[in-house]
């Protein structure tokens, strides 16, 4: 999984999208749009783009965007 493409896909799940491109180190709690609708959009994006259905508790355990990316990468490898 390429991090750049993940970040672009992730940015598009947020409403409103971030004003500047994400680097990955951002805290989820600091992102506008990372609410229940944002999480739902993220689950849908991962399901559509990567064919994965993530566990919700594991999503909420991720503190940063990089941790979300790592969660997806781990699931793809397992």
């Amino acid at each position, binding site marked *: 999984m390429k991090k750049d493409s993940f970040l672009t896909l992730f940015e598009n799940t947020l*409403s*409103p999208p971030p004003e500047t491109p994400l680097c990955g180190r951002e805290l989820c709690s600091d992102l506008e749009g990372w609410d*229940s*609708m944002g*999480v*739902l*959009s993220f*689950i*849908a994006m991962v*399901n*559509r783009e990567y064919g994965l*259905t*993530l*566990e*919700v508790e594991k*999503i909420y355990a991720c503190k940063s965007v990089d941790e979300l990316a790592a969660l997806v990468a781990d699931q793809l490898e397992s």
Partner: protein
Amino acid sequence: MLVSPSTNLLPWLRINSSPRRKHGRMERGMWASIRAIGSYFPTATLSNADLAAEFPEWSAEKILGKTGIENRHISGPDEYTSDLAVSATRNLASSCDCNFEKVEFVILCTQSPDFLLPTTACIVQDRLGLPTSIGALDINLGCSGYVYSLGIARGLIETRQAQAVLLITADVYTKHLDPEDRTTRTLFGDAATATLLHGKDRFGDDGDPSPLIGPFVFGTDGSGARNLITHAGGMRTAAANVSNHVEHEPLRDTGRLYMNGPEIFTFTLREVPRTVHDALKKAELGMEDIDLFVFHQANEFILQHLRRQLGIPSERFHIAMANCGNTVSSSIPIALQDAQLAGKLLPGHRVLVVGFGVGYSWAGAVLRWNPD
């Protein structure tokens, strides 16, 4: 206080007090069939602009974009499930040339009954002026409830326990909602529907011997109960005399609906595609044999995701929630009625209906649309 006394037989409902027919006089070899569907929506509405004014962090455009909902109908302060149920039946009676004389059973699907007891269906029987010789029961299911109720109604008719069944779905779910919970207030609206089902000769004029309602597939996973729940109102909280807050979660009111949206969505991704495939397999049909797919109208975002995942063309997938929101067990019959009025659902069409949600509970069924 109980409502409307039984002496007021409603003139719009064509009922007489003649004795029921004996079972021996009924036709042999019949399929249960949907005769007609009626609906009712409370007058008051809640728009996205209203919600955006209360919750400025969500714009009206964002709400529409994420849910596909523009308006929800909200029951009045003195308007309850039996009121909606009676109004939906009244609308059904006035919109079709239906014969209610053969109704021998009322099924009322609701999760917001007028009272903990008695059964709301009994109150509705009285208010509709239906004979005391009929059966009546409530079914406590949410978004899967219409499909389950169709299964029960089919069983009652085809085993000759009832010549016709009045299947009502009615909920005032908005009374479950926390005024501060923007997520649930954005989604849910109040509504009721009434479906009249009766028996038809199994070998009707279309020459197709397959059932008009069914086959069915059902599913249950109570491990998901905690993800969509109103804690208070049953004996578990009443008998324990607990406070009005959920244990370990001091900010959550036990009397209000709690919904973990992401968990519900994950459940949906897991079970709905499987239900579709299982129902088709049981009916010995392929995706291409279905003229219209009608799923529980949970949220347009979720529905469109499921549609794409299943490869269903948009013209064969009906969504009808923009002006009413998620109406729980009423959402499928509302969508069926809407599709029929729009000319998308025609006699002879095969429809796949799938209900899913609170419980977790889910069900799917194939219908052959043959409303006469």
